[in-house]
């Protein structure tokens, strides 16, 4: 229910409930008594104000939502005292809301509030809009007042590309035109409000949409892999070939389980479990479709969002995105446009604040598989999270080829012709970066080499990037100042990320003494980066002094030496700690081997 707060939305709703006989006689009597006690006519909107309402089979009340069941249909009325509440309520109740009833008062006409809300509805993709011209009791000539306002509304909505299903005259105070006609609407040949509501179709015709089988989980039963999920749109037949995105793995459906039955085809909305004829890599987050009407793929997306977070967000910030059942890390690349919710004017903005509607571009290292039509697809609308809390809701307007980093905005990198997961399948393991950090002579390189050998002998694709070795080639121009150490880490991490992308297990052995640098290293391959702290106390390390550096550092021949003249920041939350002071090399290597195998080999 949208419209200016004074247009009478609540009164219409209250009157609707009473005239449909959905409010108990006792409650109505209470209302009549309290109204007459105060010498005012019955204010039906009071029915909606109560935080507690007695339960009734046909009505359920939330603060601003009312579920109503008539014998013919079920309605949910979403009322909103203001624009921001409208946004929140529309977004949270969106799977239940199919139409908007726009209330315009005959005396006030279209106000700024009406404009704001209509614009938002248009952005939201509402096709079904019904208009109620209210307060005809205040007009000298109800028919003429209706004609004027109806023309205004039609013109206004037309400008927005919206076309109302009906424009109905009502007078909520007396109930004329809501459930039954009355003297004020005697001249009206069209439907009452309730009749008009009854003609609305569900906006979401997902049956006609492209097949989208969103995977929630994989269950194992009697040695079979059963892929559980929901048909969000379209239909699925047994025997069809399904392609799963974004991995582009595919197989034929040999059985569709609707426990305890097995069915030949699944309709839109069905929650099922599917058996395939081949062992392909499919997991939660994948979307199955036919090849011909597959979702769009890319590493970046142009989106329209409503920011709900308490704290603002700016470009460059990493966020989590949930699209369907998939969750990936994205970066807010750029805020293209912000629409202020109070003025509805576009404004230049460095950030998005609570309530703002923004057009933003998001990029990800992972492939985004999405549809670009919000009302038809559950992979067309997403949420963004920060620290596990939903901070925005949005829809995908376009999916574009990948672009990363500030310097690369005009550079559109190629999408690889070979996907990472194909390499995983071929190698029998995923790629990953294992970053060994620790004091000089703590045993990083030794352990790295030992584990590399063990992994190699198991048939894994593995390589060691050793800090000192790289300082003779890639990083030959770098010294040991803080800045140079950071750059050393950055370059090594970038190379490691590339190797990992290529399917390799990369073991990096660098002192990397600063946590900030190690965090930066992590961002080169965020979804498969493991910080391994090779722990060894300074005394033990110094006693070993494998390269003789500690001695030289103590004598002042080496400056900026970690442990002696340069600090080492112990990792606060490493994925693994390998203690080389109290364990032999082979023990430490075995520990690391087990860790690597456990994380990359399925």
């Amino acid at each position, binding site marked *: 229910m949208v419209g200016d707060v004074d247009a009478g939305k609540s009164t219409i709703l209250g009157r609707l409930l009473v005239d449909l006989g959905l409010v108990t006689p006792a409650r109505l009597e209470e209302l009549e008594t309290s109204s007459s006690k105060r010498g005012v006519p019955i204010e039906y909107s009071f029915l909606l104000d109560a935080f507690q309402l007695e339960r009734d089979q046909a009505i*359920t009340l939330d603060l601003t939502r009312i579920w109503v069941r008539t014998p013919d249909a079920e309605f949910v009325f979403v009322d909103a005292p203001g624009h921001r509440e409208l946004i929140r309520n529309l977004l949270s109740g969106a799977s239940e809301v199919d139409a908007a009833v726009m209330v315009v008062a005959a005396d006030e006409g279209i106000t700024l509030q009406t404009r704001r809300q209509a614009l938002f509805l248009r952005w939201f993709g509402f096709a079904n809009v019904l208009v109620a011209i209210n307060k005809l009791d205040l007009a000298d000539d109800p028919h003429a007042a209706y004609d004027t306002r109806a023309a205004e509304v039609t013109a206004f909505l037309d400008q927005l590309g919206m076309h109302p299903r009906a424009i109905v005259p009502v007078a909520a105070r007396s109930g004329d035109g809501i459930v039954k006609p009355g003297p004020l609407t005697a001249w009206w040949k069209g439907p009452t409000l309730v009749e008009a509501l009854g003609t609305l179709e569900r906006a979401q015709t997902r049956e006609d949409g492209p097949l989208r089988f969103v995977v929630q989980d994989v269950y194992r039963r009697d040695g079979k892999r059963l892929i559980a999920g929901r048909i969000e749109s379209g239909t699925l037949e047994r025997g069809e070939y399904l392609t799963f995105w974004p991995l582009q793995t595919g197989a034929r459906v040999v059985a569709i389980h609707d426990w305890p039955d097995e069915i030949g085809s699944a309709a839109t909305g069905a929650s099922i479990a599917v058996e395939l004829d081949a062992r392909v890599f499919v997991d939660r987050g994948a979307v199955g479709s036919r090849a011909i009407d597959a979702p769009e793929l890319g590493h970046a997306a142009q989106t329209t969002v409503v920011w709900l977070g308490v704290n603002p967000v700016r470009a460059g910030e990493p966020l989590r995105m949930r699209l369907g059942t998939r969750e990936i890390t994205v970066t807010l690349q750029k805020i293209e446009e912000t629409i202020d919710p109070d003025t509805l004017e576009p404004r230049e903005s460095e950030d998005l604040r609570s309530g703002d509607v923004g057009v933003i571009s998001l990029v990800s290292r992972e492939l985004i598989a999405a549809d670009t039509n919000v009302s038809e697809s559950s992979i067309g609308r997403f949420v963004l999270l920060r620290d596990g809390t939903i901070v925005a809701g949005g829809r995908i307007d376009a999916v574009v080829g990948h672009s990363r980093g500030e310097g690369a905005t005009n550079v559109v990198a190629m999408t690889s012709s070979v996907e990472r997961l194909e390499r995983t399948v071929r190698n029998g393991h995923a790629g990953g970066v294992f970053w060994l950090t620790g004091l000089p002579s703590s045993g990083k390189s030794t352990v790295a080499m030992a584990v590399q050998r063990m992994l190699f002998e198991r048939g894994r694709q593995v390589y060691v990037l050793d800090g000192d070795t790289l300082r003779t080639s890639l990083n030959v121009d770098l010294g040991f100042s803080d800045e140079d150490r950071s750059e050393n880490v950055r370059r090594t991490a970038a190379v490691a990320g590339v190797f990992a992308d290529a399917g390799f297990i990369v073991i990096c052995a660098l002192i990397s003494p600063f946590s900030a640098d190690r965090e930066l290293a992590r961002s080169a391959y965020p979804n498969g980066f493991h910080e391994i702290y090779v722990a060894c106390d300074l005394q033990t390390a110094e006693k070993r002094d494998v390269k003789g550096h500690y001695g030289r550092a103590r004598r002042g021949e080496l400056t900026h030496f970690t442990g002696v003249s340069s600090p080492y920041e112990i990792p606060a939350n490493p994925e693994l700690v390998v203690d080389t002071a109290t364990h032999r090399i082979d023990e430490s290597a075995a520990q690391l081997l087990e860790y690597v195998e456990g994380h990359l080999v399925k």
Partner: protein
Amino acid sequence: MSSLDYLDELEARTIFILREAFSCVSPLAMLWSIGKDSTALLWMVRKAFLGEVPFPVVLLDTGMEFDEVYAFRDRLVADWSLPVANEPCPPESSVDQTLPPAARHAARKTAGLRALIGREGYRGIILGIRRDEQAIRAKERIFSPRNADGSWDPRSQPPELWDYYAYDVPDGAHVRIHPLLHWTELDIWRYTLREQIPYVPLYLAKDGKRYRSLGESNITFPITSSADTLEKIIAELEVTRDPERAGRAMDNESEDAFERLRTTGYM
């Protein structure tokens, strides 16, 4: 191929929610009150997980349920091989004595639930509450985070946009999952009839009375009815205007008692 009818849609949505809970929240447990709602939910759990119940089914036992309820429980546990965990609730003397008498029973269950969560560390608890049961339940979310002490503030809840739920729970806290929120009392009975789900015989009328809702035997009172089959119960509900929980002493004792119960962690 036929499209889903209304009950199919409700069922499919509940199965979706159950699968989301299982995939994203761990460890998980489900409360089974042995009433018609949570039994229908248990039925859907078996559908969702292809015949299995992959998490414990917890019974918060005050020792004061009707005999028929206990008998029904035992039968179903055997027939469905349910992985039950019986959790005896603390005695009445240990709960808030300022609450009205019937509400004290509910408080026992709250205390039992809190002890269970504290001991087992459950991050998610599945419950079969519905929005249409009680005013304050109408404000619930499908995934509803609870603070470490089990309390809930209906005014500051996370938004639930489309089918995206709040899975992330800070340590020590838990999330309540309500897969039946969108079902009504009538829906549950229609579904029970359609699927032939077993139910406690007390729901059917005997000697002109039946129980519309089942709480402990000393705080639940029958209503006048001659509906002795499910079809008749459904027909009766289609015309009735009285709230379902009217026979439950605790809800009527004091309006804000129920609100107080909920905000301190009652179901």
